[in-house]
């Protein structure tokens, strides 16, 4: 499972960076979305994938039976997903406003503040 996930994550990162390097601001935001998803999957995978072993302690016992999945990275990923959602919602509104004001979706036309 892990090699497959690693490949998928690598592909996601590559696609995201390719999209971010395009001139269109819509593609830029799509790139950002893919990038944050790639990071979330990466956390999930590096913490180790355990199949069918929820971190639950059976009733009346003080510790779980055998090895269980690590719950911490799942909590971390959940937090990261929520944060990414909020930030990307802002980014989408931002590109819409930018498009309305600048009247172009081309990053090369947004150079007024560079020099």
């Amino acid at each position, binding site marked *: 499972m*892990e*090699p497959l996930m*690693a490949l998928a994550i690598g592909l996601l990162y590559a696609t995201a960076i390719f999209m*971010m390097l395009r001139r269109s*601001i819509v593609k*830029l935001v799509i790139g*950002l979305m893919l*990038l*944050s998803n*790639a*990071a*979330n999957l*990466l*956390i999930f995978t*590096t*913490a*180790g994938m355990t199949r069918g072993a929820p971190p639950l302690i059976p009733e009346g016992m003080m510790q779980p039976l055998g*090895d269980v999945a*690590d719950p*911490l*990275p799942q909590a*971390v990923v959940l*937090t*990261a997903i929520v*944060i990414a959602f*909020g*930030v990307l919602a*802002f*980014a989408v509104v*931002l*590109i819409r*406003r*930018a498009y309305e*004001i*600048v009247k172009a979706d081309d*990053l090369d036309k*947004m*150079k*007024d*503040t*560079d020099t």
Partner: protein
Amino acid sequence: MRPEVALPVLLPLLSGAISLMFWRSRPMQRFIAVAGNVVLFVVSLWLFVAVLEDGYITIQMGSWPAPFGITLVADMLSAVMILLTGIIGLAMGIYSLATTGRGHEKFGYYPLMHLLLAGVAGAFLTGDIFNLYVWFEVMLVASFALLTLGGERAQMEGAIKYVTLNLLASVIFLTAVGLLYGTVGSLNMADIALRMDEAEHSGMVEVLAVMFMVAFGIKAAAFPLFFWLPASYHTPPVAVSALFAGLLTKVGVYSLFRVFTLIFDQTMGYLQDIMLWGAVLTMVTGVLGAAAQYEFRRILSFHIVSQIGYMILGLALYTPLAIAGGVFAIMHNIIVKTNLFLISRITHRLQGTYQLKKMGGLYRERPWLAVAFFISAFSLAGIPPLSGFFAKFVLVRAGFEAKAYVATGIALAVGLMTLYSMVKIWNEVFWKALPEENQVPETPTPTGDDGRLLKPSLWMMYLPVVVLAMMSLLIGVFAEPIMLVMNQIGDQLMTPSGYIEAVLGASASAEAALLDPIEIQAERVDDRLEETP
């Protein structure tokens, strides 16, 4: 239970929440902006005094024991940064009353300011690396909204670059946190430091160190990752620029200091040269960029970049004295740079432009404003007896002691270039006569950032400027007691065992023995990672 550690984070959150409840009431929001920030300042002072007595103060959130729950840690560095946050927050609370347009106030300027301060304070105090990421995001989201309030064309263009590059940095940071957790199996920074010392040094640790360096380097605007800063910092209202200039990049620098003295202290030998030359190039490009500019705020923006170089130089030299100098530079820069932005807004109000060519004659017109600018600008350039001189003096001395002659020499030359930029502003804005074609009317109409009329309330703009200028002067005069505090920071950062003990309890190794199940888990994860081709 030490409430003073949690209060600097909770209070601005509370002020922001109360401020949101009075969404429609402008006077109430303005009142909370000042009152909330006064309380924040008092609490930050309390924390500083408490840390001065005790050295380290920790508090476990939700009473979960150290490596499992989130820990808030205040060491001397955190306390100083929180104190500066309190000072700048108070100054901006008062200054914003005079300059913020009604349109901005209506769309939540004050709640956002409080939330930004909460994010900054949280980042300074947290002892958990994922929590640091969360506070970074709190701060970023607030700063995104503040940056785009008003929605002018330049703001939009600046914001797209700012948002993209900061989000990219956040993702790199998050990726690094994920890989770090996969490598050592902990998120508590003290615990990570402990496990890092035990773990054998594989290539993974170096990769992680570089990822953290890049992520925080983007946030701190270090060379070659600084391009978002001069493209965006001059676009929002000046009160926002000043707040960003004072605090946001410094959070990135603070994180570099924290992570590279605590977690990657062993990897430092490998990265030291990269960081050193990165710092030197940051200084040089920043100051050269400023030399080409003739817009007041853009010159200041490029100088932020240049000054970041000095701070990172302190870290890169990696001796207690150099770290002390780097933190001194952070402290001096937060006060002085904020003040210069505030002054630029006053000159704009008096003469209606930020273009140096069109300004002039302010020395004759407003001699005291000229004095305040003189103190701040020449402090930035490092003229004794102002605060910048001592920051630079300590850094240069540490540089010579570490035998980094070339880097230190360049740092001195950059000081000269900074002086050139500041003298340029002084000549154009204050000294030369006002150009004929730009004679402003006798009583210029004061307008807010959205172009509407404001009541004359110049004293509210002058008050923070005068106080901050005085502080720069006083830091210079009382450099010795401040240097004692800085030396303590240098010693604390260079001996991370104190921090680890403060977080994990005196018998950190005994605690580690209790963690066996998790360690086994971590080892298992390690094995799996090795199995993965």
